[in-house]
């Protein structure tokens, strides 16, 4: 069984995406044997009022019939925008959202902004995860209208060091860290805290090319299959798991990576 913990529907304003609605994503899932996908609406990154995007996703899922069960919807919340507390409640109670995605860079607030801390604590109290990612697209080919965190500049793409302060601020929340594409280095004290935190990382990012080694240092329960679809191709994240040798991951560990860790983390 495969569960994709990092997929999207919606649009990217600067580039046409394929397979970017639930129906076409179901086709993709069926073709490649993926039973469930965590999804959120990309439009929530760009709408000032993110709840409009959450409602869009809810409506789209409703139209899917039984196939709505193939999706685990996550809401997008901007904690510095008015009314987010109401949005959070509506997402869970009405829309059936099972977690939340936040975009500090796109929504222009610091990782230790008190509003974000309040949001993470609220999500924690609901026993739901909150998801961060390193980046959405490769900054080397970004549109000039996109955010200006650009590789090889004084304002580079994020690494784990940029995300870690929120984990330090709310260490007992559940975190997903997605599209891990740059360094995972932390200083010794922070690394110890990070290792204790309830974190699930997906296999879509290129840092996971060394998944065999990461399983040794991070443990077998902190990674799960993810695609970052439809921005990244559908299979590379899967390949990082399936190509592991038995000496790196036996059958039981591969099952954890395919779906077991996701099931446990998301309490499915």
């Amino acid at each position: 069984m495969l569960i994709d913990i990092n997929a999207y529907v919606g649009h990217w304003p600067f580039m046409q995406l394929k397979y970017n609605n639930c129906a076409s994503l179901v086709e993709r899932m069926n073709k490649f044997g993926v039973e469930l996908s965590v999804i959120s609406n990309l439009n929530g990154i760009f709408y000032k009022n993110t709840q409009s995007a959450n409602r869009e996703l809810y409506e789209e899922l409703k139209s899917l019939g039984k196939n709505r069960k193939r999706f685990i919807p996550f809401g997008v919340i901007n904690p510095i925008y008015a009314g987010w507390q109401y949005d959070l409640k509506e997402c869970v109670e009405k829309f059936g959202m099972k977690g939340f995605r936040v975009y500090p860079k796109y929504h222009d607030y610091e990782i230790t902004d008190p509003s974000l801390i309040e949001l993470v604590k609220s999500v924690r109290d609901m026993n739901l995860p909150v998801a961060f990612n390193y980046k959405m697209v490769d900054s080397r080919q970004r549109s000039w209208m996109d955010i200006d965190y650009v590789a090889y500049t004084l304002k580079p793409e994020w690494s784990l060091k940029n995300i870690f302060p929120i984990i330090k601020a709310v260490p007992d929340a559940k975190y997903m860290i997605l599209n891990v594409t740059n360094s995972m280095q932390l200083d010794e004290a922070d690394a110890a805290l990070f290792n204790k935190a309830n974190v699930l990382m997906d296999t879509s990012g290129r840092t996971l090319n060394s998944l065999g080694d990461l399983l040794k240092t991070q443990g077998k329960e902190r990674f799960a299959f993810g695609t970052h679809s439809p921005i990244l191709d559908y299979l590379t994240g899967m390949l990082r798991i399936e190509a592991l040798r038995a000496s790196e991951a036996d059958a039981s560990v591969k099952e954890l990576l395919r779906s077991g860790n996701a099931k446990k983390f998301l309490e499915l």
Partner: protein
Amino acid sequence: MNIDRRKFVGRSVAGVAGMLAGSHLKGMVVPGRRKEEQEDDFSSGLQQYDLMKEVMKYRKIDAHAHIYWTKDSPETQLNYGRRLGIEKQVISRYLDVMPGTPEQFRKFNDLTIKAIKQYPGQLLGGFVLNPAYKQESLDEIKRCTDAGMIGPGELYYQVKINDPKYYPIIEKLIDLKMIIHSHAECQLGVGGYRMKYNGHKEPNTSIPEDFVDIAKRYPEGIFQFAHIGMGGDWEYECKMFRDYPNIYVDTSGSNNAENMIDFAVEHLGEDRLFFASDNSYYQGVGKILASNLTEAQKKKVFFDNYNNLLKKGGRGVD
């Protein structure tokens, strides 16, 4: 005809839904069918997919890979290759030093020669040079060819590919029926189309327009534009090369954007892509398998396109 009707109907409905992908399917029902029927069909569509069987189904030549000065090289690269069924890797030690003197490029090529002697069944060698040193570069072509190398590896940023300094080098490579492989960026900066950050790029790095210029000057030359997945704007690159049949692209790079391969085939045709990794091995294989190419097209991209050109120079892989 032995077709399971339920599976056939299910796939058909899914196909129709896919065609409607751009139309925001909120509440949409496929015409002529009850919503409940569609719900049943959708839920029955999950197929088994054996990814590693697909990976191993295709013979592969990695047309762009590198070795390093570290002790674990080339074993680390070979290990990835074995994992993913990559039969041959075309390796080079790219000349990432300035000014790139003859002494430097000979030293870099010595590393490659040592590796291909050690692993002749798995590694194909590509040499590097610097056209600013004309005679030394021509001499190096002979030395490296005599040592068994198949052509240039990833030529680097010392001189633009369309600079007149390159003409005698390119003419020699054409005589030898070698694939002319060069590093390139989409633009000399970072940050995408109309880049505004310098990114510390060397000013003589080749860009797509330089490739077009040289490909027009030497229509008999075979040019390999490096790594459409390296972070440059691959849509821009593929559109730029559409009308220049002697420019091929390698698919390598750490960026594995969805639709990159389909877009490249749409614009360049199925014969002008080379599978390559630039050492991002998972992305290299994953992006091709995830594409909508047919099995025959994937076979071309993974192996035949590059090998057919090697054969022209008598260097093909059996």
